[in-house]
């Protein structure tokens, strides 16, 4: 029952809104990731849940209690910080024990819980060391350990992996996922890294400019982004966007741009019909374009000139020039393409996205 509920949450800094009217329910035992570019309000939201940031208006509930006026110490939460925030003058053991001491847990129980957490995280042999004697990955584990010994109602994570090198980050990501399924506690996780968001979250909340853009399961957001921002933010390399003009053709709607002309799939037709004669934004992910063979319907093909070839190993990224617009396509590593090649691509019709040019909302 340790859900977290945010109701019409607002935070202003000197008249400038940092968080605008956020409504969100984080269910019991759910792992929810807040993701967005820096300055999107995700960290401020998390800090309001923690009680470190005052709330301008709205409510935060943990369990069934409104905690707006409860100091952080009484919220029964634990938080892992970006720079770990280990107390430099205390040993690893004392770092982990501090929260329990503050709550008046007796010594035997503290020892038991610290040992238990240390075993889970594999830091048992470092308990006597000071934080500065540990590597980045070990510090990260201590910070996690300090949070889990407390058995809190809710875990808060503020970009906990961003100070680790790339390899360690992937490793810790997997461990965090395991840890969560083991502890089975509500968790709110803030990151700017969309890969972390997609892999860790039961649900993902995409934020921009203090507002929630979309909430949903990772693949739901990936496959059906609510607007152009979400579409562009999730996925690497990012979705390609092109301005197209919608027109009535002989066999249904067509989307035209200087470089290509595409038959709009019939299932999108009804939604796009009101835009006939107007310009909209079309989106297609790099992996949804393939090199065409002779048999593909010409209404789904476009021609591009290869400008850059990026060989990543598992895939090759081609930067294409398509009628004055740039597009990125992901192709099989076996493809032999060179700068200046003119290639024909076919797109998957059911993976096309269209966005209203003014509101940027998905059509």
């Amino acid at each position, binding site marked *: 029952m340790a859900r977290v509920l945010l109701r019409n949450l607002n935070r202003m800094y000197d008249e400038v809104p940092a968080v605008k009217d956020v409504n969100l329910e984080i269910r019991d035992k759910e792992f929810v990731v807040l993701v967005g570019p820096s300055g999107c309000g995700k960290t401020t939201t998390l800090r309001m849940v923690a009680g470190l940031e005052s709330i301008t208006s709205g409510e935060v509930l943990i369990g069934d209690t409104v905690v707006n006026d409860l100091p952080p110490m009484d919220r029964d939460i634990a938080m892992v910080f970006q720079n770990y925030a280990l107390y430099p003058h205390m040993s690893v053991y004392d770092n982990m024990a501090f929260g329990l001491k503050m709550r008046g847990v007796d010594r035997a129980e503290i020892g038991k819980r610290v040992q238990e957490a240390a075993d889970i995280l594999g830091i048992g042999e470092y308990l006597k060391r000071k934080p500065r004697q540990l590597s980045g990955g070990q510090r990260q584990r201590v910070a996690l350990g300090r949070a889990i010994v407390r058995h809190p109602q809710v875990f808060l994570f503020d970009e906990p992996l961003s100070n680790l090198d790339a390899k360690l980050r992937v490793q810790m990501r997997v461990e965090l996922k395991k840890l969560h399924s*083991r502890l089975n506690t509500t968790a709110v996780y803030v990151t700017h890294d969309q890969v972390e968001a997609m892999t860790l979250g039961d649900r993902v909340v995409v934020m921009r400019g203090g507002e929630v853009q979309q909430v949903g399961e990772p693949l739901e957001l990936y496959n059906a982004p609510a607007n152009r921002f979400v579409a562009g933010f999730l996925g690497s390399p990012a979705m390609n966007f092109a301005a197209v003009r919608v027109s009535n053709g002989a066999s249904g709607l067509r989307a035209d741009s200087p470089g290509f002309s595409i038959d709009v799939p019939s299932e999108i037709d009804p939604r796009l019909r009101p835009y006939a004669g107007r310009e909209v934004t079309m989106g297609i992910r790099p992996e949804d374009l393939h090199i065409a063979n002779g048999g593909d319907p010409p209404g789904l093909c476009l021609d591009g000139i290869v400008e850059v070839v990026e060989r990543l190993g598992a895939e090759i990224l081609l930067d294409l020039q398509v009628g004055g617009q740039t597009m990125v396509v992901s192709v099989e590593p076996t493809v032999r393409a060179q700068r200046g090649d003119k290639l024909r691509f076919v797109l998957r019709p059911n993976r096309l996205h269209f966005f209203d040019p003014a509101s940027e909302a998905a059509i």
Partner: protein
Amino acid sequence: MAISEAVNQRAFARAPRRGAATLLLEDERWLAAALLLPTVILLGLFIAYPFVEGVLLSVSNARVGIPGHFVGLANFTALLSDSIFRVAVWNTFVYTAVATVLKLALGLWLALLLNRHFRGKAFTRAFILLPFIIPTVLSTFAWKWMFDPTFSVINWTLFQFGLIHGRINWLGNPDLALISVIIVNVWRGVPFFAISLLAGLQTINPELQEAAAIDGAKPWQRFWHVTWPLLLPVTMVVMLFSIIQTFADFQLVYVLTGGGPANATQLFATYAYQVGVGTGLLSEGAAISLAMFPFLLIIVVVQLLYIRRVEVH
């Protein structure tokens, strides 16, 4: 799993009961008030209150033991026509200006010397600060003894080198006394300048020097175009601090000359002491002290503005 069971079994919303004082101190504003209270009381009682009291004294005709009554600006107008006061004002400005310039020049020179690598550097640096940390009054007595016309080791040294032929009365000669006092002030202040500027020098990335050298700058040009501009913020702050201290100096002069001979070394503070404590004319003494205030205020304002400007950048 043990942990998850523990979580599930626990009652929620179990915010522990806290005392009213604890909750009050969780509010930043109340905590700040509580933390600042002792400081505000002490500073209020022994800085703000004396300041007000000083202003009140300076517009009265109080003597030691006699409360006195309001006389307006009479004490200040009397000061304007007081020839000793005018000498003291002149002396104070000369003393401050000459001593500060010398301290800056010599301090910077010493800092540049200490910024090189040589054996025993830490040791030298530690010893060089001695004049600054040893009680001023006590070290000034050593100078007074060195300046003694009859037994002066300085005179002996100069005589041995053939630089003088008769004896020099360092503190007794009205023309020399102020110079002698300045020498001692500079002696005491140079270490402070040197160590502070050295700290400033050490924050300058040596790569800048190397880059300038590669660009073909001569040592003097490197100093003028690279080191000096980067050192300027520290220099300004150190200088403003020193100006205030020098302007309001008392102990050096009190020990060396007591303001004499014939008021040749009289400063604001020594004159205020002489009048206010020596003769017991509290109100006149307070007026002389307070006459420093406008000058100090200007320096403090300059300093605050400068610090703010540096912080903005």
